[in-house]
């Protein structure tokens, strides 16, 4: 506690200290606080473990790539030195498999805070000259039962369990005083009731949030230190700050809800039932309704029909055969700068057919993407019905685990894929042979992190939304505070 000043401490300090002493005498707050701390710890550990698993998987992928390319390089070196016994893959094979490298999406410095959607999608893709469905349709290995249940990460503890603790501490903040008979006494003092109430709430919220803030900071700083990322990096701190602000706003919203229920003048038992009902409503029923509504009105486009369409298009291209090749060459005169297509250049033919397929698939993919975007837009609008869903998405965004960052990665994959295809297509049509120089000139994928402004653009509205709701709710409750009476309804 604070040291006693020679003069009488200001009133608010007195209030806070008094409340703290009362609360500290009870067993339940300590018990609940400890349980929450343990759960937060477990969530933090799980998130950290997952981020480490991903980093290791990415590390292994990159090592394998480097080894494969080094072996290829030494083969080419032997061939260049005149050794005709070594088998050098033709350039088409280099672009399709042998010289490919993985494009990777490493977890952000705050990746340990949430697993989010990152267990559904692999954080690497082996980009080749082939069509993009060949590397984008790979699923990460994960027990489907775990995917269904979801992960026990910090975001889960904050969204689902923190409100339970908050409600347990605040459900009787007014009704408890009334039932003890102390409300009448309090109302006769010169202290405004609002100030009294805010002091009571402040102490309780601090108790509930203290552990959350500590564990979050500990995890974030610990991961930053272990990963060797610079602790001075502004972006990480901005993320941590944003995360904490979001959690704070969410906690404030639940507290305002408890306050709003309390000023209605019911007994503690009714308050408890109402608040549990609210928790169920916002965390289970509304999300379920939104999920059911969104997937009925904007069902996810089908990858099954996509698969059939792809086969149909590739069959049609194969059927067109020579005509498809001729058409491709007519459309891409730049491919034949060196004269005619060499006899027996089967890779050039493969590419022409593949490109014809891709062309036929373009509208199909466009329709798929726009259906997906429509679904995402509608989900983004309807989630406003539950602050819990808003917070969950925002926390995933801050941790770099949301769909936004993945789409950002996908766009870069697209650009890289096109560059890779361009690089090889020209050389395949020119019938070049593979050499070490070519290996050195391969396009390289470097993931550019999403600008902070993008993340802020998605998360700040969520924060503002939570704060606005809190403001409205607590404004209403404080206005009604004047009508609080020592007699129960």
């Amino acid at each position, binding site marked *: 506690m604070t040291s006693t000043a020679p003069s009488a401490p200001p009133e608010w300090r007195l209030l806070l200290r008094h409340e703290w002493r009362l609360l500290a005498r009870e067993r339940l707050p300590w018990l609940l606080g400890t349980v929450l701390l343990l759960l937060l710890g477990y969530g933090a550990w799980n998130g950290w473990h997952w981020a480490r698993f991903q980093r290791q998987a990415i590390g292994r992928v990159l090592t394998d790539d480097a080894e494969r390319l080094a072996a290829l390089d030494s083969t080419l070196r032997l061939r260049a030195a005149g050794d005709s016994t070594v088998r050098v893959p033709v350039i088409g094979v280099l672009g399709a498999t042998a010289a490919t490298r993985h494009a990777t999406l490493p977890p952000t410095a705050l990746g340990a805070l949430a697993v989010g959607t990152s267990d559904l999608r692999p954080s690497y893709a082996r980009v080749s000259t082939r069509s993009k469905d060949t590397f984008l349709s790979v699923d990460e290995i994960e027990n489907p039962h775990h995917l*269904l249940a979801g992960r*026990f990460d910090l975001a889960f503890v904050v969204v689902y369990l923190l409100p339970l603790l908050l409600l347990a501490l605040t459900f009787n903040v007014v009704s408890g005083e009334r039932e003890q008979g102390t409300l009448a006494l309090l109302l006769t003092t010169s202290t405004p009731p609002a100030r009294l109430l805010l002091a009571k709430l402040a102490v309780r919220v601090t108790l509930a949030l203290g552990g959350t803030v500590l564990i979050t900071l500990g995890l974030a700083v610990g991961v930053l230190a272990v990963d060797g990322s610079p602790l001075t990096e502004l972006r990480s701190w901005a993320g941590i700050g944003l995360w904490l602000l979001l959690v704070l706003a969410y906690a404030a919203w639940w507290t305002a809800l408890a306050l709003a229920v309390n000023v209605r003048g019911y007994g503690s038992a009714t308050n408890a039932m109402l608040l549990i009902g609210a928790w169920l409503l916002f965390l*289970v029923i509304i999300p379920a309704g939104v999920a*059911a509504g969104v997937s009925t009105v904007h069902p996810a486009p089908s990858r099954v029909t996509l*698969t059939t369409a792809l*086969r149909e298009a590739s069959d049609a291209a194969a059927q067109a055969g020579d005509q498809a090749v001729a058409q491709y060459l007519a459309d891409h005169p730049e491919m034949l700068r060196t004269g005619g297509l060499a006899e027996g250049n089967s890779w050039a033919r493969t590419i022409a057919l593949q490109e014809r397929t891709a062309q036929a698939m373009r509208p199909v993919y466009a329709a798929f993407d726009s259906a997906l975007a429509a679904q995402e837009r509608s989900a983004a609008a309807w989630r406003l019905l539950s602050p819990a869903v808003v917070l969950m998405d925002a926390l995933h965004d801050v941790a770099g685990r949301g769909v936004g960052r993945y789409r950002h990665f996908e766009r870069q994959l697209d650009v890289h894929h096109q560059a890779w295809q361009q690089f090889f297509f020209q050389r395949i049509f020119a019938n070049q042979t593979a050499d070490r120089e070519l290996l050195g000139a391969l396009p390289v994928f470097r993931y550019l992190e999403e600008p902070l402004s993008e993340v802020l653009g998605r998360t700040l509205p969520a924060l503002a939304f939570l704060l606005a709701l809190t403001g409205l709710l607590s404004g209403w409750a404080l206005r009604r505070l004047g009508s609080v009476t020592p007699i129960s309804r």
Partner: protein
Amino acid sequence: MASPVWRIARKELVEQARDGRVRLTSLLLVALLAVAFLAGRQQQQSIRQEHQAAQQAMRNFWVNQGAKNPHSAAHYGLWVFKPVPPLALFDAGVNAYTGVTTYLEAHRQNDFSRRPAMDQPSVVRMAGWSAAAILQLLVPLLIILLAFPAFAGEREAGTLRQLLALGVPMRTLLAGKALGIAALLTLVLGPATLLGAAALAGSSGQTDSPRVLGLALTYGAYFALVLLVSLIVSARSGTSRRALLVLLSAWAITSLMLPRAMGDLARWLHPTPSAEQFQATLTRDIANGLDGHDPADVRAKAVERRALAHYGVTSLDSLPVNFDAIRMQASEEHANTVFDHHFGSLYDRYRAQNALVQAAGIWAPLLAVRSLSMALAGSDIEQHRHFAAAAEAYRRGLIAWTNAYLRDHTRTGAWDWKAPPSVWRDYPPFDYAVPPVGQMLGPQRRALLVLGGWLIVALLLFLRTPTPRLE
């Protein structure tokens, strides 16, 4: 009907049914169930039709691929799609989280891909909804709300003293309360169950009655368990508030926290490889053999020796058949042992992880119920594994057939030879039959044990519940 048990049950039923809150909650529950059944039916039916249509389209592509070298046909391959079980409208289980299709081609067993969940917004994952989820989460909540004041409430109202003064034995009182609440639940859930049955009958035309019966028994047992435990807690708690707090905490822990917490624990204790690592291991072991001492060139020499000995000739040129086909089939069979090993151990990993979660049912029987429900509905990972095995068996048969055709109709080196366009229909279409439910319950032994054990213990405790203190 004059027995005191019935009288108490009737009083409990009438009193609860008069309560506006109970009526509202029950109505809401029935409405939610109805929506879940109808939406489930509509969704599952459209997925089913889509899969059937795609499967048929793939067969047509295969049959009409024209004159082709059989090995090219093997590379052309086909996709197969997982059928949707009729009961998925009740419990879609992991169906959104497993791939729905796999590509069957020469040389390689591909994993399933295209998980529907990848294209769903995050809220769907946060609160995936089905009739099963309502039965697992909300019905127990309703039971708790009905049962928590059974004894503690009577005491607070002062009526417990009168009841006991009448000389009503504790067991009669308990049985009456339990029956009354059970009757109310039957009134609430009965129509919903009928609606579900109608949705099921209308959607598939065929109903697998052992599965439906199994589901009814599982959920019946679970609701009975929740009811017994709630009454025990109510009788043993000092105040109704305390009873409610205990029961709600238990609810939150079993339905919210443990499924996630156990999943993460299982993942840690039985880790699975990353997709890339899995593929790399496959490639490595196909090249060098599972033991790492069986390189491809050594294997090829052995195949050559065997073929020459079999046909009694001394050189490949004098073989009456296509040796390339023999060699390819041998390498298929070698690769198949590698696939069996690695895919087998991956699915065994999943099974070990799930067994751990099921065993945690000792603390939270809901975990056992979830597992049983998916198994009975045919939407768990074991069902997926069964389908994956059938698809892989079909792939191996198909590839072996193309190799045999090439072997018997050509001589070595005939890569440019084309089989007539009519041969492809000779290989039968993929026809998958869902296994009988008994076969799928093997890995559910623990879940059954846990649920049965809980029920017995709860029943014993229930019968031995002491008369509550009056103060």
